[in-house]
């Protein structure tokens, strides 16, 4: 142990900071209606919201994987001003208030939106306030986490693996599938987990763009917010579920990080 002393003031501030994290969690656990928890869990409103949340967040993660990996490749393997602008735009949703994202999505894909009006006129398709809208909102907010992780993975990848594969006669797609993707697996995995966690907790953009329709767009975070007024026990139970999922994710990721060391 180093013998350098830490001043008391820093210790006190750190303790305050820790309390700010821990007290709300303690409140959640202490006030949890443990005897009613099972009942709440099997309540149709809860199960519907849970099922919808799972479906939307997993779909959003899948879309993020399909679109985000190619995007990360473009960002990692090109240079120039255009790339820098693209990169900034890609990461914008990470810092943008989610509700602004929701408004932006409405303006683009709403019935009178930029693209939405065309879709409506040509095919009669309306996106806002559907499950698809919830998925889009979650993808919009969560995909940057995947893109950033995969881009970082690509940057630290030794290009000579791909060059060795090419010199052995492997064409682009074989190199991509058999060499690049497997070597990127840790980055893709952690990016996908972060992306999924963000999608699962999405509230602002979803409620703005998709609204609050039980069974269609009412995901768990929205259900928690709504239930807080009328059925606080349900809100607490659902919150606990999200908490457990988050802790499990963190533990899983930690294992992975430690394993990589």
């Amino acid at each position, binding site marked *: 142990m180093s013998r350098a002393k830490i001043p008391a003031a820093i210790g006190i501030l750190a303790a305050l900071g820790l309390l700010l994290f821990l007290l709300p969690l303690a409140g959640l656990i202490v006030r949890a209606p443990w005897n009613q928890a099972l009942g709440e869990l099997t309540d149709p409103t809860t199960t519907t919201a849970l099922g919808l949340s799972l479906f939307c967040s997993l779909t959003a993660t899948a879309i993020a994987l399909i679109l985000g990996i190619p995007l990360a490749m473009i960002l990692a393997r090109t240079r120039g001003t255009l790339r820098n602008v693209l990169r900034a735009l890609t990461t914008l949703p990470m810092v943008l208030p989610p509700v602004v994202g929701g408004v932006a999505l409405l303006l683009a894909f709403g019935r009178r939106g930029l693209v939405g009006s065309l879709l409506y006129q040509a095919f009669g398709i309306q996106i806002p306030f559907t499950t698809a809208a919830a998925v889009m909102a979650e993808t919009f907010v969560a995909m940057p986490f995947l893109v950033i992780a995969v881009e970082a993975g690509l940057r630290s990848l*030794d290009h*000579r*693996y791909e*060059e*060795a*594969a*090419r*010199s*052995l*006669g*492997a*064409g682009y797609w*074989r190199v991509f599938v*058999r*060499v690049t993707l*497997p*070597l990127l*697996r840790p980055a893709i995995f952690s990016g996908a987990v972060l992306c999924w966690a963000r999608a699962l907790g999405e509230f602002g953009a979803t409620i703005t763009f998709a609204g609050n329709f039980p069974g269609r767009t009412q995901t768990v975070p929205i259900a928690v917010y709504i239930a807080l007024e009328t059925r606080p026990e349900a809100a607490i139970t659902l919150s606990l579920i999200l908490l457990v999922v988050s802790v499990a994710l963190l533990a899983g990721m930690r294992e992975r990080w430690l394993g990589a060391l």
Partner: protein
Amino acid sequence: MTLDAVVRVRRNGFTLDVALTAAAGETVAVLGPNGAGKTTLLRALAGLDEMEGRVVLDGEVLEDTSQGVHVPAERRRAGLVFQDHVLFPHLSVVENVAFGLRAQKRPHPAAVAQRWLVEAGLGDRAGALPRALSGGQAQRVALIRALATEPRLLLLDEPLSALDVSVRAEVRRELTRQLDSFRGVRLLVTHDPVEAMALADRLVVLEGGLVVQSGTPDDVTARPRSRFVADLAGVNLLRGRAHGDQVLLAGDASVAAVSAGEGDVFAVIHPRAVALYRSRPDGTPRNVWHGEVDSVDLHGDRVRVRVKGPVPLVAEVTRGATLELGLTAGATVWMAVKATEVSVYPA
């Protein structure tokens, strides 16, 4: 089967400009100091980097920038072996070897790969992941991986340099064995003269992006044409203009030699032929120069004394002599070399 290449690469103020031919059955080593452009040359030949010029392998044009021809790396059948194996870390040893066979749609890739490994005495490592191999084993697997696809051109990028000295001999043996039975064109780049001398039939010396000398290892070291080659051969190399029995160096100095000829020449003096004195010697040697000891390096019981002055030379003397003469850095000395010990050839 032959390789005929003219490769030009310009990058960040560096220009590589090399014409190279190599026949099947001979190992050509491109030897040069770091930064000479060796790896650039290899990568251009492999089709991995952009280049200008023309590369023809066995009659097939792989690259001709004037005609817009470029055969991509994956269709060149040029096996590449990197300095540090670059085995795919997520694939087992046998799958690493089978990778190229699968890519080229050869029959029974796993069985063929296994046979290659068994022949190299690595059969028991087939199921291991690359990280479980020793450095020497990994590099041998990397060599087998490149050879298993039966390339027409084998490109080796400093294949022994990253290895511990203790395992170099093991890998060099394997390399020699594999190179002997390989029927394509073999090209090795290295900055290590020992590696080049041990493996190559012909040397091409590259410096600053240009070929400064080529020939058999004996030719090259007998008649160095650059500082780099002279250093690796352990001889003194001087450049000047010959006139009669004299070679005029830059500055005012001159070297007496036997029939030096006329024009630009190299003069080579072996360090063993340089005698050192504390005062100006008076004798038969025609070359007597004054200088200051720059450094003294011990090589076993021999000492290499580097002397700076109008004619900078390295002298090789015994340990006893250095003690007796008090040769330390900064000491002033006289050097004497007989004219018959100076070999001169056209630059």
